[in-house]
């Protein structure tokens, strides 16, 4: 018995055509976007550190409290 080869329906062909169009358009956009943005990264901020060191000499502890900023100009 000879086997009958089934033909793909028109709907399937149409769906594949739409998929091919979308993928093609998307690929074109990706390449366009990449070529226009690559190497254009901007660095807007940087940070560096500093340090202040000192050695407090004198009484080990003072029980006298001071008000905020008292005596400081």
């Amino acid at each position, binding site marked *: 018995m000879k086997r009958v080869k089934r033909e*793909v329906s028109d709907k399937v062909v149409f769906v*594949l055509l739409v998929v091919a169009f979308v993928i*093609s358009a998307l690929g074109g956009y990706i390449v366009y976007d990449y070529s226009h943005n690559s190497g254009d990264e901007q660095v807007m901020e940087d940070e560096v550190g500093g340090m*202040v*060191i000192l050695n*407090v000499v004198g009484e080990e502890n003072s029980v006298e409290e001071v008000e905020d900023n008292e005596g*400081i100009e």
Partner: protein
Amino acid sequence: MKVLNNNGLVVLLTVAIIASVSGTFLSINFIDDVITGAATTTGNVTITVSSTAGCSATDAIIAFGNLAQNESNNTGGANNDTIHIANTGNTNLDVTAETSVNLFSQRDAPSAFWRISCYLAESGSCNTTEHNVQEASNATSLITSLDFNDGTDDFNVSINVTVPDNETAGAKNGELTFTCTTS
């Protein structure tokens, strides 16, 4: 002439989809290599130089040595042991300062016992008024529009400290973070 049936169209469309996807990836992966070649006539080259904010600190550690309780010292003026910050990028900068580690155990920032200011800038608007060193949420502006050109791209940071009279004796270490942002 033989008419192509739907089966043939499906095969062709599948090949087109695969070619499209492959072409996209190849373009992205090899775009830098492809944009080369020999020219036999006049050509124009257009490039975009990215804006980069960068800064560096030299002499970043200020050592006041021994100080007694209630004693003060500052790094500006005659003492002139300042933190030197340079604009190393290619855009003008605004620079702020904040503390990440408090200098005194008895006085958290902000307090008048640890103050900061801009001192001797080559360009920009230098904020020479002393301000209490702040926590990160309220950083102090030291300078705005610091230029990036060599010769006019740096400034100094002055520190003024007063040891609280209830501060315990011993070594103290305060850390500052300078944030350089594009103007």
